[in-house]
Structures are given as C-alpha cells and as structure tokens.
C-alpha cells in the first residue's frame, strides 16, 4: 500500500498549525512540574559529593525530627535481591554500599514544602570513605584502574580483559589486511569526544502517589510512560498494572527521558508518607550531575583508499565509557561509523567501559555522532592528502539499496545518493570564502526504530475522529499523526484530535525515541483508521443490502465500488456516524504491533566557518542540512528536527563538555558553565528535505529526529581545517583548543 513518489496528497505535506500550539503559546500546557494535588508533599534528594566512596553510615534522625518532614528514605527502603538491568536501575536511583559518581543519590526526604525538604536534606548526615576514582575512558580501561564494580561484565567479555570492560564486541566482513594492501594511502588516527548532556530545558519532574496497598499513580515528564511504569515497578517490586502513569507535556528529551532517575523516589516517599502525593523536581545542577549524559569516546580509525578515492578497507576500534553502569553506545557508534560507505572489508572492535560518572542515557542517534566524528574526519584528511573532492569521494563510495551495510545486512530502500546529489546542487557550495574561512562537509546515519506500538481511534457522533496514542508529542507528532489520519479517513485535519493518553488507556507503547513517533504511531493510526473505514463500509453495505466487498471508501464517504455494485448515493462519514447507535454501536479502530518496515535516514551537512586566529573562536557563517525524510508529513517540523539536531551537534563540536576536577567532581553544573548554543552564536540553518519514500510506511515516512546531530561534529572539524590548516581530533573544539593547535602549527 505504499504510495509512490509522485502521489499528491490532500493533507500530507502541508503545514497546518499544530493542535497543541495554542496551549503552548499561552502558558496553559502543563509540563512535569506544573501539577499539584491536595495534600501534596515536596521532595529533596541528598547526593554524593564524591566520585567514588563507600557509604559507611547514614544518620537521618535529625531530618526526621524536623517539623514538616513526612518521610525519609535510603536504599534500605528498597527491595533487595534484584538482578540485571533492574538492579542497575535501582542502584542508579539510590546508591547502595557505594556512591559511584558525583551526584549519585544517597537519601531523599518528603516534607510539607520545598524549603522544609531542602532543610531536612541538609540535616541528613552521611559518612563516606572516599575511594580512588577514574573518569577518563582511556584511564578506566587500564588493567590497574580502580574497579567500579566486580562481576559487571557480561558474557561477551572474554577472560583476561581489564576489570572495567563490561561489554566487548567484534564484527565486520571481508579481508581487511588485503584491503589495506590494495590501497594507495592508508591512514590511522585517534579521535576523542567528551561527554555532553542532552540539555533539554525542562528539568526532570514528577508527582507520584503510592498507597500501602501498592496501587499508585504518577504524573511525569517522559518520552515513554510505559517505560517509566515498568522501570519504577521493577525497582520497587510492585505490580505494573497497579501503577497508572500519565505523561505531562514534555520540555525536550533527546533520549534523556527514556529512563528513570528520581521517579521511583516519589513513589517510595509517598508510600512511606501514608500515600500523600510527592512532587520531585530536579534542579539544573541535579540534571547535569545525575541524569543523561552521553558517553565519552576514544577511537582509533584506519582507512585504506586508492588514488582515485575508492575505499578499500576500514578498521575501527572504539572505547567508550557510559558512567558507572553498562550501556555506552559503542555498538551503535561502530555500526554507524562506516554506514555511508560501501566497504569491501571492514573490522569493528568495541569496548564498553565503566567509569565514575553518571549513567549515560540515550542521546539522539546514540553513538552515531562519535563514530561519524572519527570516520568522517579521517575520510576528509585522506581526501586532502590525495587532493580529492570530499563530496565526489562520498558519492563514489556511497551505499545504495541492496548493498551490504558496513554492519552486516543489506540495505533496503535508502536515499544517500539523492542526499549527496542535492547537496552538490545547493548554492551554499558556491559561496565565496574569505581569509580564515573554510568549508567542511560530512554525512551521518541513523537506523531508526520501531518498537511496541498501540493506537486506538474512535469516530465521534458527528463523523470527527479522535486518536489515542502512547508516544508523547515532543516536536509536533500530534500534528503529523492528525494529518495522516485525516488523509486516510478523508476528513479535515481540524476534525481529528490526537491525544497522548496514559498507561491505562492502551497496550504497551515504547517511548517517543528512535525517531519512531511519526513512523510507528503514525503507521498504527493509519491502520486503525483503515479498520474503522472497513466497519463504516460494512454499515453502508448493510443499509444498501449489498456485499461489503462491493463498497469502497473515497473522499470520506462510502460508495458502491463500480456500476455492478448497485446505484446508491455516497454515504459520508458524518451520515454513517450519526446513525451509529442504531446500526451496531460505536465505530472505532485500533492497532497493536511492532510495525515493520522501518526506513533508515542518511543526511549530509555542509558548514562554512570563520576562525579568529587571535582567540581561536570559531564562528558558524553558513550551515546546510540535507537529509532524507522518506516523506515529510509536516515539513515545518521536519525542518525543525534538522535544525535542532544540527545545533545540538554544533554545541557538541564547539563548546559542550563535561569538565571534571582532579577530585572527580563535575565542575560545570550550571548552564552558565555548561554552555549550549544561543541565538547569537548562529546563522539561519538552511535545510533541504530529500524525499525517497520508505516503502515500509503507508505515507513513506522514515523518521527524521536523530540523524541531524551526527554530521556537525566532523563537518565543523573539517571546516576548521579548511579555514586555518589545523586538524582537531578531540572535542570540543573550543577557542583554547583551537588556539593551542594554531600555536603548535607555528
């Protein structure tokens, strides 16, 4: 049922106002911290000031004695005996024997006001025995590094590996050595990226209520409330069906709100406080110290290339730390690194390493930006060495449908060639560059993801429709899902209302992550609409006394399919809906599946920079994003994803980094010091939406949310080299780093 690239749609591809726009420009939309309830208490969390320390003793008696304090909890209030990921989640929610990073929660209180809770938190006395710590990934992987956790390695780690290696992987194909032998130029370099934070402007917030009977409710800002439900109940030993989780509007997530941090604390505190609701709102410094961030990476890449730019082989060995728990996205970094290239031979080796840092959470195309930084920088270095045009080299080696991907299987429908051609044709490539100005380009890739999806749709008495989805709307997905539903039903966009509903209202849904909301919830909404259409056709057939097979749905009405079916005037959706009570009852549709047919998305960015040789500051002069959307359902929000992703990548490239002191404590815990890009740092971000429809989606959607963060890291490094002739192989390329490189060159 895929539509071809030439199909014209009535609504798909238009740019109507988003349905939640009015609430969001008037301050009415309710986010995580915007709700209160009768009898509500406020929480505060006590956090470790040490990177690694044994918790000798916690004395809560003074806090408990304070007027207004209703509950104090420590790890002793959590069930014991958890294993695997449930244990990881519990341990990260509240430290057990040891604090594993600066900011690790060790106790929490609930009190009648936020100030009383904060006062009480200060009265909790924790005795620590400070232990040696390790922060940098290359230190953490040393055989004699401080051991973060014995026995954390999984079955993939062979005997004899250093103690902090918890996952190990090797994959690839072809004869790599022969490939390097056939090359005219083989280069090998090491690249490093620092951890960065997702930096959503809304801090984590929730209000939880849990009675003695184990029944409870939660209001929470999250990308996925079923994940919250499962994780909270796993950590607390509760029955998921008894916890009802309602998602608030969400102030950004970028992957960082796909897991739990302090949510179980609200439930545990509530239970201890006799079932009074407990609100937990993180401060910005708690967000930076104890949530997110992404992993840091140290990466060796080797590539062989012929004189005319043919890649003959590649090898990547990546080491990543994702904090004190397993899960650094080293696998995805490797899988995405060479994805844009046809690789006759390739070898990948990856180490997931523990360090005394907060547990990494997913961050937009997890791992892909790091992999791209290493591979796309080296490709650029080699093009320069050989005097080749980097765009032509990328075209020459570009993967197409049916090619074997660097990470194993064959590619389905992809649009890399189309993206590169559109890049080549863009006027930005003709802009003149002045002194100290340079141009860089790079490509990026993300698989995209499907996951558990459950959607229901109900036709109202007047023929309008409401759709219930389980994927929170972070960037306009209500609009895109309403467009596709209205298109399918043949009604107006304004006649569809899309609601993001709570866990009690649908089957399990994975979060809004993996660029899946418009793909998966959208596809399920279309299936649900088609089910309702089938029912409406049956009702029309019954009225006409003809076979339901002889009825078709055209422009929002049932009509006889062809002259043989009989001659009846079309029955509109409004007419059928008006009679629903007397023709069989409510008309609805629903769909539950893990939708197949995910379409991957490639993008290419071109950036022009100017480097100030006095200060080392890099200014972005021009920025172009070209990316395959499959089909842009609401192009304005697709552009928004491209622009937002690019700017997060620009921040990662130029400024953002977790900065640790010798003591292992995070030093930049406020936005003043953890500086994300601001409006005056940037030009307009030019976009080109390439549309190579995904045959696996009824309207061709690929999912566009993630790829855009990937190319900026190497594109900017390549542009800086073009501008001033220095190669930065370590992020961020902040003014002092660029200045030092310029000095070293002299």
């Amino acid at each position: 049922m895929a539509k071809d690239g030439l199909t014209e749609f009535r609504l798909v591809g238009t740019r109507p106002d988003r349905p939640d726009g009015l609430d969001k420009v008037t301050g009415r939309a309710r986010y995580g911290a915007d709700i209160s309830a009768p009898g509500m208490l406020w929480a505060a969390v006590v956090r470790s000031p040490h990177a690694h320390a044994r918790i000798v003793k916690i004395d809560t008696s003074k806090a408990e004695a304070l007027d207004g304090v209703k509950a104090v909890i420590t790890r002793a209030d959590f069930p014991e005996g958890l294993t695997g990921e449930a244990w990881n989640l519990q341990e990260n929610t509240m430290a057990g024997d040891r604090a594993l990073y600066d900011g690790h929660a060790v106790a929490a209180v609930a009190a009648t006001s936020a100030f009383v809770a904060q006062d009480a938190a200060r009265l909790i006395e924790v005795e620590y025995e400070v232990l040696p710590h390790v922060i940098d990934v290359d230190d953490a992987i040393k055989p004699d590094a401080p051991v973060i956790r014995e026995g954390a390695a999984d079955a993939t780690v062979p005997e004899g590996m250093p103690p902090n290696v918890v996952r190990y992987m090797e994959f690839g194909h072809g004869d790599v050595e022969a490939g390097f032998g056939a090359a005219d130029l083989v280069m090998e370099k090491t690249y490093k990226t620092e951890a960065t934070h997702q930096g959503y402007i809304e801090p984590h917030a929730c209000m939880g209520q849990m009675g003695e009977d184990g029944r409870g409710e939660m209001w929470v800002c999250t990308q996925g409330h079923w994940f919250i439900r499962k994780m909270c109940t796993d950590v607390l030993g509760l029955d998921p069906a008894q916890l009802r989780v309602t998602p608030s509007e969400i102030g950004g997530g970028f992957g960082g709100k796909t897991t739990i941090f302090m949510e179980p604390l609200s439930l545990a505190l509530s239970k201890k406080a006799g079932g009074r609701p407990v609100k937990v709102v993180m401060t910005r410094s708690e967000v930076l110290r104890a949530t997110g961030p992404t992993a840091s990476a140290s990466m060796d890449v080797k590539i062989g290339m012929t004189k005319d730019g043919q890649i003959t082989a590649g090898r990547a060995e990546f080491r990543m730390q994702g904090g004190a728990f397993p899960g650094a996205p080293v696998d995805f970094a490797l899988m995405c690194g060479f994805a844009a290239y046809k690789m006759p031979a390739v070898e990948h080796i990856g180490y997931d390493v523990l360090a005394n840092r907060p547990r990494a959470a997913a961050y937009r195309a997890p791992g892909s930006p790091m992999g791209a930084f290493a591979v796309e920088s080296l490709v650029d270095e080699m093009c320069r060495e050989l005097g080749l045009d980097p765009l032509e080299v990328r075209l020459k080696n570009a993967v197409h449908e049916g090619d074997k991907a660097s990470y194993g299987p064959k590619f389905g429908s992809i649009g890399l060639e189309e993206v590169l051609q559109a890049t080549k044709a863009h006027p930005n490539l003709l802009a003149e560059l002045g002194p100290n100005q340079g141009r860089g380009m790079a490509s990026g890739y993300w698989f995209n993801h499907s996951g558990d999806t459950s959607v229901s749709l109900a036709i109202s008495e007047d023929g309008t429709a409401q759709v219930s989805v389980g994927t929170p709307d972070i960037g306009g997905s209500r609009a895109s899902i309403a467009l596709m539903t209205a298109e399918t039903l043949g009604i107006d966009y304004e006649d569809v209302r899309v609601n993001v509903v709570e866990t009690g209202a649908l089957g399990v849904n994975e979060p809004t992550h993996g660029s899946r909301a418009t793909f998966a919830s959208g596809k399920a909404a279309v299936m649900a609409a088609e089910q309702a259409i089938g029912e409406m056709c049956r009702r029309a057939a019954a009225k006409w006394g003809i076979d339901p097979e002889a009825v078709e749905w055209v422009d929002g009405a049932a009509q006889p399919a062809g002259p043989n079916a009989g001659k009846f005037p079309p029955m509109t959706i409004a007419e059928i809906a008006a009679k629903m009570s007397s023709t069989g009852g409510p008309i609805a549709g629903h769909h539950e599946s893990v939708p197949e047919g995910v379409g991957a998305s490639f993008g290419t960015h071109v950036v022009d920079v100017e480097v100030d040789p006095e200060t080392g500051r890099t200014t972005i002069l021009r920025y172009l994003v070209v990316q395959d959307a499959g089909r842009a359902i609401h192009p304005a929000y697709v552009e928004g994803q491209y622009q937002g992703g690019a700017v997060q990548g620009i921040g990662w490239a130029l400024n953002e980094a977790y900065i640790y002191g010798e003591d292992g404590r995070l030093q930049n815990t406020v936005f003043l010091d953890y500086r994300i890009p601001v409006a005056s740092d940037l030009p307009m971000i030019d976009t080109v939406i390439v549309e190579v429809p995904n045959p696996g989606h009824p309207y061709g959607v690929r999912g566009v949310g993630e790829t855009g963060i990937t190319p900026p890291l190497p594109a900017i490094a390549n542009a800086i080299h073009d501008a001033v002739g220095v190669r930065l192989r370590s992020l961020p390329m902040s003014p002092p780093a660029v200045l030092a490189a310029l000095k070293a060159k002299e």
Partner: protein
Amino acid sequence: MSKTHVTTKVNGDTVEFLADPRASLLDCLRDNLGLTGTKEGCGTGDCGACSVTLDGTLVCSCLVLGVEAEGREIGTIEGMAEDKELHPLQRKFIEHAALQCGFCTPGFLVAAKALLDQNQNPTEEEVRYWLAGNLCRCTGYDKIIRAVMDAAAELRGEAA
C-alpha cells in the same frame, strides 16, 4: 521561617500571597498563584524560561525574590493575549513552527515582546542578541528568529 505578606499586580489583577523570604518570584508565581506558564529551566538566570516583566522591565523571575514584588506590576505569559486575542508574536510562533517541545516558548514570547515594545524594526542580529539569554534546545533558533521578525513586520503594518 515566618512568611511575608505581599500585595502585587499580576497581568493587571491585584493579588496577595504569603512569601517565604527565600522564595523567588518564580516560585511565588508558580506555587502560590498557580501561574505555571512561567517555567524554570535553571534557577540561576541562565536560560530565560522564567522571563517576566517587572514594572515593564524584562527580568528573570528566578533571580527576583517574591517579597520584592510588593507594590510592583508583573507581566507573565498568561497576560500576553488580550481579550482572547493572541498577540501577533503568539500567532507567528504557531504559524512558523517556532516551538517544538514548547517549554522555552513562554520565556521567548515574553522576552520578544519586551524587545518589540521598544523596537519595532529590529535587525536579525538585534533579535538574536536580545534573545541570547533565552535557551532553546529543540529548534536551533531559526524558526524563532523568523517568527519574531515576521511579528515585528506585522506590528509595523507591513504585509508578511
């Protein structure tokens, strides 16, 4: 700690509340008055999500104490639409898709209105520098800047 009685005007209405002397104006607006449209992104004056006007001057309400509101006039996002009519900035933000998650939006709107109240013909650069204290992590600012420029044009009476 004993609380202080505060009488102030918010969006033209006289209101009273009891402020903890440590509470910010942001806390008081949100928790005492139920005006949750003003957001907290940092609490340290770095993100602009808490932007309000105090006697007509743009401020970060997280950096003002609640007790300082005594006898002053405060303008918040809830007061921006007059008589159910959206301010052109609000309309243009929706039209240009200048919000994704929308969390930064109230702060941007209040800050942008403060700019347009004093300069109806700002350059792109002036808009970018004026809004440099408002963080948005979703949009890359492109569509926000366009929406503000377009609203300014409309306020000047130029057809978009």
